């Protein structure tokens, strides 16, 4: 992979506040800092309502943060951009357009001067890539949930975004379809070195896909508790990933976080916790990451 710029995406002290009905403000999260390198696959996990979608919407530019800024490739985000493609949770296909129409709409938005044939040629290539050859002329209503999500993926990839943003893209699918789509997304993203930020509820999904897993504490006033580096080899395969030595320690660490530490973290912060540099944790046999802040309590206790 190309040399990494560790600050390709830099989330710098963002917060999101909403006015309360009875006056005052609720702080969903504040002072959030996070860096993502080019080509990295980052998963954010946290409990429902902690503000994951809000973070993603700020990254996409659909919403502005109340405070702070996000810098992408040296430029502050000021609104939505074709450089950042979004795969929405509810697929968000335009129901009056066919599969081809939906993907071609994105392609022709990206390359405004491209001819019809050129646009369709490109759209067809991405429809083939997600395995929907032969369904080009179908409307979203005629597709299964998994197929719709594939169209969403094709649409996002077809514009060759610098960053792919996904909000629980597979949560509405059955386990089997989810597995297949995870395989495909992983295959495509590793091959092209795509930078990805993905939100998920699913620990196993995060372990299989992510290079880094960002743990968010419960809201309100959610924080990034730590960033867990995935110790599993980059070329992991679905059918053997759970046999890797580091798999269960990693999984236990994540589950422990979701079960208890996400709740207690706020009152039980590791000494020297600095929201600007959330601790980077590396589980298991691998050596701790270089720029580790204070050694997190639980990671040390993991088998």
């Amino acid at each position, binding site marked *: 992979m190309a040399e990494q710029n560790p600050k390709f995406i830099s989330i710098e002290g963002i917060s999101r506040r909403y006015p309360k009905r009875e006056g005052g403000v609720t702080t969903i999260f504040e002072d959030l800092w996070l860096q993502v390198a080019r080509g990295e696959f980052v998963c954010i996990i946290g409990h429902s309502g902690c503000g994951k979608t809000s973070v993603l919407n700020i990254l996409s530019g659909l919403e502005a943060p109340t405070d702070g800024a996000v810098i992408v490739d040296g430029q502050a985000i000021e609104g*939505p*951009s*074709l450089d950042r493609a979004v795969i*929405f949770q*509810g697929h*968000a296909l335009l129901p*009056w357009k066919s599969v081809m129409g939906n993907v071609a*709409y*994105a392609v022709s938005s990206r390359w405004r001067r491209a001819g019809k044939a050129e646009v369709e040629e490109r759209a067809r290539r991405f429809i083939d890539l997600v395995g929907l050859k032969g369904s080009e002329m179908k409307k979203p*209503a005629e597709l299964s949930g998994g197929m719709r999500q594939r169209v969403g993926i094709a649409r996002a990839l077809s514009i060759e975004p610098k960053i792919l943003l996904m909000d629980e893209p597979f949560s509405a699918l059955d386990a089997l379809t989810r597995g297949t789509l995870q395989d495909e997304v992983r295959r495509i993203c590793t091959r092209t070195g795509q930078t990805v930020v993905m939100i998920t509820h699913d620990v196993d999904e995060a372990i299989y896909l992510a290079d880094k897993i960002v743990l968010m504490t419960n809201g309100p006033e959610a924080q990034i508790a730590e960033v867990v580096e995935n110790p599993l080899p980059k070329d992991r395969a679905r059918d053997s990933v759970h046999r890797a030595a580091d798999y269960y320690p990693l999984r236990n660490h994540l589950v422990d976080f979701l079960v208890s530490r996400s709740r207690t973290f706020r009152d039980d912060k590791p000494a020297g916790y600095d929201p600007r540099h959330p601790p980077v944790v590396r589980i298991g046999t691998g050596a701790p990451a270089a720029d580790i802040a204070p050694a997190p309590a639980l990671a040390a206790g993991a088998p």
Partner: protein
Amino acid sequence: MKSLGVRAGILSVVLFFAFCLVWQIAVTPSASSGPALDPEYAKLMGITTAGAQSAMPGPVEVAGKLWDALKDPFYDNGPNDKGLGLQLAYSIGRVAIGYGLAVLVAVPLGFLIGMSALAYRALDPFIQVLKPISPLAWMPLALYTIKDSNLSAIFVIFICSVWPMLLNTAFGVGAVRKEWLNVARTLEVGPWRRAFTVILPAAAPTILTGMRISIGIAWLVIVAAEMLVGGTGIGYFVWNEWNNLSIANVIVGILMIGVVGMVLDLILARLQRRVTFPE
């Protein structure tokens, strides 16, 4: 077993003939009522009836008149004697102009109102007051200001068709799903392209519903309007035939009003089906 459609068709035909039979029996003078009364009554009514014929025509007579009207629909023998087709054409023409103008005004205006919560709030009281006014109530005002009966009729059609389209367009545009708009935003689609490629198709089914309601109202109103302003049109035709006491022609007129109204609705229904999308 025949299909439901075939059986329904057979039943429709049977019902039609049963209705005609009852109609025929009802208008045939019974022998017991005495022939002495009929000419007397006829004289009172001012009709020179030949023999024992009821003033109310039977289905056969109406069918005959209908055939006459359809044989030569476009003749023109002066203001009081024009073919049925010609009269219908006048009415359809007025509806087309008034309704067409209403579409041109209501859809873009509804678009703006639907896009802006401020405009919606500001214009809502006006619309709520203007909407329930019977379109014919505008007629004197229209005649006074426009001073042309034909244009006044068109204006009345305009004013009655504009409200359902305006409200439906505003509602449809305002109710476009946020996620579809977000798709357009993340693709950096400009406002014009967004209006035509996302908002319009998303709101089209609602807009077409409004257009369909409007065409129905317009066709109801044109008949009444033409009875008021006179001159030409199917409404005038019906009124004129009533003055001629030609009930058979009145019934023919009524029948044609129904048929044309049905055709107009069918056209809009087809358009509506074309823009409707399953979710």
